[in-house]
Each structure stands twice: as structure tokens, then as C-alpha cells.
């Protein structure tokens, strides 16, 4: 127990000294393992993990989903998603902010990263909202909050990693993310409405679009909707009917999605050879960085398990004699705090090996816990003072202060807490879809 706590402290120290998280976790895991089992045992463990992790078939889903998201964003499809949301909602007060939320949700359905969703949508939605005189507070907040949906609405890179780490079905995790994701959209729309009610000047109404314009906009996105239906329908088993009989493993769904996104972007003439090469190299380098963290985390979690931290934690919690829900609330609190400091995936990799055995021993569902962890991570992305999405937005937009964005984001943060409470108290909201698979 003491060894693990020292190890955890050492990782945090090295990470704060700007050492890559992957190497900090790997190095501390290696040294810790060596103290317990000697140099030969430890270096053998490290060598085996490096070879096995990089050749894991299940992990091939990661680059393919990243690729799908990048093809969609480079293909300029975010603009069309925004357009279709705009023609239906733009004429309402606060309608452009609402359209932003809906477009973010649509983009999340193709892209598995929150930071990418926020960065992409800010380029599309921000100029429009400025044009119609929206206050920066509302416009930036709606993008920052809407962007967080990226890691919950399937496909989600974080859920893939959680699934692989805990041997939970990735298909079930994806399907379980749908209802909480849609609930997030509805509650964010409520947050926009609330902001508008308090300050009607912050989001004036835009032009009303007629039906021909609406049909044109819908025609612009049918391919994306089809792609989403193909990927998620194939995973869920909806396509296992005459005459296609298609069911996908997560890797196959990701491969189909990436190829589909590539073909859609290609058919629009928005991909040059240079862009394709750029998308592919960006995906490859992102994958390498993610795998480095994954390998480091695996080494670290081997040490933590050897040192008996999960068992010690379980024994400690049992000795306290508190209700499982109280323990869960404590864990969630730790996640919100850590989420303010760590990049989402690293936080997940560092904590899940420690908390997951405890959570399942307390009788919580692994799929439910995965979704809850992601929702908490979403909250931490917009929590002051260090919510990462806010800083991404600040980086793209530039001339708005982070204080303004954080002030605007407050109502969104509040409804996020409401959503978290709902999902914790009513687990069937998460579980009824995956349990029907």
C-alpha cells in the first residue's frame, strides 16, 4: 500500500515537472516493480507489455476512429452540420447557441474527442454568432460545453480505452453513451434558454429559414447521418437484417466509419492529396502518443496491482463501513479534481486500475461506471480554473478572456451536475439500451 502511494506521488511529481505522462508512469511502474521483484523480473514485464500492447488487435479501433473524426473535420462537414441546425433553430432567441449545441452533438457522433469537437466547432460557429451580435459569454460557453459531448456520444476514444482496460464490451459502452449524450444536449439547450431569459440581449434571434432552405441543408448532411447509422447500427446489431446481415466488431465499425468518412470527404472534393497525407500522419502520431501513454499505464498498473493497492483500498473502504453510494460520491469528487489537472485519457489510465476493482466489488455495473467516469471527465473539461475545453476555445478564438468563458459556462456546468446526479441516481437511464442488446 505504502509503495503504491509513493509511486503515485512520484508519477504526479514527474508529470508536474513536464515529463511525458507515458514515460513518468512507465518509469515509476518499472522502478516500483523492480523493488518488489528485482531488475530482471521488471524489465521482462516491460518488454513483454511493449510487444503485446502494440500488437493488440482490439486496440486497432483507436487509430481508425481518430481517422474517421479527422476526415470528417478536414472534409468541412462540420459547417454543414452547423447549417442544418441553424436553419431549424436560428430564428429563436439564443437559437444560434442552440444550433451550436446540436451541431456539436452531431459532430460528436462521428468524432471521438472533445478537444477536437470544440476546436472544430469554434471555427464554424463563432463567426456566425458574432455576425448576429451574440455576446461572447454565451457563444464561447455553448461551444466549450457542446464540445464536451465528443467523448460521450459514440464513437468515443475514451470509452474504447476504458473498455479494453477493464474488459468491458466496447459495443455496450458505446450504446450506453447514447441516452446520457442526448440528455446532455437537452440540458444544454435548457442552459441556453436560461441564459437568454436572464439576459435577452446575449443571444438575439437570427433570420427564419424557409422550407426549401431547410431541405437543402438536410441534403447536405444525409451522408453523415447515414455514416453514423452504419457505424452505430452495425455495432448494435440493427443492420443484421435482410438483405445485408451486417454486424460489426468495434474495429470493423471503425474501419467502415473511417472509409465512409474518407469517401464522403473525397466525393465533396474537399480532400487534396496533401490533406490526405496530413490527416494520415496526424492520426499516426496521435496514435503513437496515445499508445505510449497506454503502455506506460499498463506498466504502472502492473506495479500497483503487485503492491496490492486495489485490495488495500477495498479493505480500507470496508473497514469504514460507509454506504457504497457514499464511496462513489468520493470517487467522483476525486475525478473532478484530477480532471482539472490531467488530460482526460491519462487521468482515466491512472485511476481506473485503482478504482475499478473497488467499484465492481461494491456492486456497481462496469458499463454504468464507464459512462459516469466519462460524464465526470466532461464536467472537468469546463470546470474553472483549468477546464481544458475553455483553453482550447481561448486558443482558437483569441480575443475573449478565459474569465468571460468561465462565467458563461456556469449554467452549462450546473446542468452537467444535474445530469450527473440523474445518471447516478437512475442507473437504468444508462443501462436500459445496452441491456437490450
Amino acid at each position, binding site marked *: 500500500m505504502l509503495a503504491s502511494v509513493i509511486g503515485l506521488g512520484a508519477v504526479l511529481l514527474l508529470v508536474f515537472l513536464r515529463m511525458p505522462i507515458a514515460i513518468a508512469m512507465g*518509469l515509476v511502474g518499472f522502478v516500483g516493480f523492480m523493488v518488489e521483484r528485482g531488475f530482471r523480473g521488471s524489465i521482462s514485464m516491460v518488454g513483454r507489455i511493449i510487444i503485446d500492447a502494440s500488437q493488440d488487435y482490439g486496440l486497432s479501433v483507436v487509430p481508425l476512429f481518430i481517422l474517421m473524426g479527422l476526415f470528417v473535420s478536414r472534409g468541412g462537414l462540420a459547417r454543414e452540420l452547423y447549417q442544418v441546425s441553424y436553419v431549424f433553430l436560428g430564428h429563436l432567441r439564443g437559437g444560434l447557441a442552440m444550433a451550436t449545441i446540436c451541431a456539436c452533438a452531431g459532430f460528436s457522433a462521428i468524432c471521438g474527442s472533445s478537444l477536437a469537437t470544440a476546436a472544430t466547432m469554434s471555427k464554424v460557429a463563432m463567426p456566425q454568432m458574432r455576425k448576429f451580435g451574440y455576446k461572447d459569454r454565451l457563444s464561447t460557453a455553448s461551444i466549450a460545453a457542446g464540445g464536451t459531448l465528443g467523448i460521450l456520444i459514440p464513437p468515443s476514444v475514451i470509452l474504447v480505452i476504458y473498455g479494453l482496460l477493464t474488459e468491458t464490451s466496447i459495443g455496450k459502452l458505446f450504446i450506453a453513451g447514447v441516452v446520457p449524450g442526448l440528455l446532455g444536449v437537452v440540458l444544454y439547450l435548457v442552459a441556453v434558454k436560461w441564459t437568454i431569459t436572464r439576459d435577452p440581449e446575449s443571444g438575439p434571434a437570427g433570420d427564419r429559414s424557409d422550407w426549401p432552405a431547410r431541405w437543402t441543408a438536410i441534403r447536405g448532411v444525409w451522408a453523415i447521418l447515414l455514416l453514423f447509422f452504419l457505424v452505430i447500427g452495425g455495432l448494435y446489431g440493427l443492420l443484421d437484417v435482410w438483405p445485408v446481415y451486417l454486424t460489426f466488431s468495434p474495429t470493423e465499425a471503425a474501419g467502415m466509419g473511417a472509409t465512409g468518412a474518407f469517401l464522403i470527404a473525397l466525393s465533396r472534393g474537399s480532400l487534396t492529396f496533401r490533406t490526405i497525407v496530413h490527416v494520415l500522419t496526424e492520426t*499516426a*502520431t496521435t496514435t503513437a502518443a496515445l499508445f505510449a501513454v497506454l503502455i506506460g499505464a499498463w506498466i504502472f498498473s502492473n506495479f500497483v496491482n503487485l503492491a496490492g493497492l486495489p485490495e488495500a483500498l477495498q479493505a480500507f473502504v470496508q473497514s469504514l463501513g460507509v454506504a457504497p453510494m457514499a464511496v462513489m460520491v468520493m470517487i467522483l469528487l476525486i475525478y473532478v479534481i484530477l480532471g482539472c489537472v490531467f488530460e482526460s485519457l491519462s487521468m482515466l489510465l491512472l485511476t481506473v486500475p485503482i478504482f475499478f476493482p473497488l467499484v465492481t466489488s461494491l456492486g456497481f455495473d462496469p458499463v454504468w461506471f464507464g459512462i459516469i467516469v466519462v460524464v465526470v471527465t466532461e464536467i472537468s473539461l469546463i470546470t474553472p480554473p483549468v477546464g481544458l475545453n475553455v483553453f482550447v476555445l481561448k486558443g482558437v478564438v483569441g480575443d475573449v478572456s478565459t474569465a468571460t468563458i468561465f462565467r458563461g459556462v456556469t449554467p452549462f456546468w450546473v446542468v452537467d451536475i444535474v445530469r450527473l446526479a440523474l445518471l447516478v441516481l437512475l442507473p437504468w437511464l444508462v443501462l436500459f439500451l445496452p441491456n437490450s442488446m
Partner: protein
Amino acid sequence: MPERDHEFEHAAPRLRQPGFWHYVAVAPTWVAAFVLFVMMGMTFLDVILRSAFDNPLEYATELTRIFMAIIVFASLPMVSWKGQHIIVDLMDPLFSMRAARVRDILIDLICGAALLWPAKRVWDLAERSRDFGDVTEYMGFPQHLIEWFIAAFTAIAAVTFIARGLLRIFAPGRVPG
């Protein structure tokens, strides 16, 4: 309308032609990119052949595994060179310029040293696979070739980190990332 690509915007007015070493440095990343594209196409083809003709690609799973190792490890040196690893920069304001420089030099050198041992170990395991004549189940592809590849590129990543650390000492202006 396609989004504009930031990297290319900055790179547009190139004054100097990239030299031989530039191509040597980026070649592995291009290989990774090409392999990724092939993996995407192969997964697509596999699904189509399986569902439409009940005739999936026999080697798809094994090839995917090999491709993954290539994608990850061929990109690793470039990720290390450009400082694209995932880091936490929250504590940066606490360091003075001089302290930050010393910190970055030490971190790069430690990272490089820390990767040398795993590289050596993976190489040893590869040699063992070669002695045993280990091959993949379906294709009979020699396992040690993949492991050699992983070891070699881990070692290159280690050297890259060390080079970055040394560059920070002798020519700080030229450190990328």
C-alpha cells in the same frame, strides 16, 4: 468548404528546399501513414467480402496486428522529436526561464535513458523468438522481424530524446515543439 490547414499556412513560403536528412526523418511517419491507410481499406474490404460473399480475408486479423506495431513505433521518434507526447503544463508558470531550461534538459535526457533498456530488452526477446523460429499463426510471418522493428524504433526514439536534451544545451533555439 474545406477548413484551412494551419500547419501548411505557416509552411507555405518555404525559403530553403528540405534536404536529405529531412526526408530520412519524416520517412517513417509517411510509412506509418501509408500503412494506416492500407489498414483502413483492408478492414473495409474484409467486412464487405465477409457479408456480401461470405469470404473474409483470412489474414486480416494478423495483418492488423503487424500494421498496428508499424503505425505506433514508426511514428514514435517523430512524436518524441517534436515534443508531441501528452504532458501536463499546468505548473509552467512556477518555473523561471533558467529553471525551465534545466528542467527540460534533464527530462529529455532521463526520458532517452529510460527508453534504452526497454529497447534492449525487446531486442533480446526478438532474438529469442528468432532462435525458437516463432511465426504468426496463419501467415507464418517471422515474429522476430516485428519485434526487431519495435526494438529499433524504441531505440531511435530514445536517441531522439537524448539528441533533444543535448540540443537544448548547445543550440536551444533549434529545439522543435
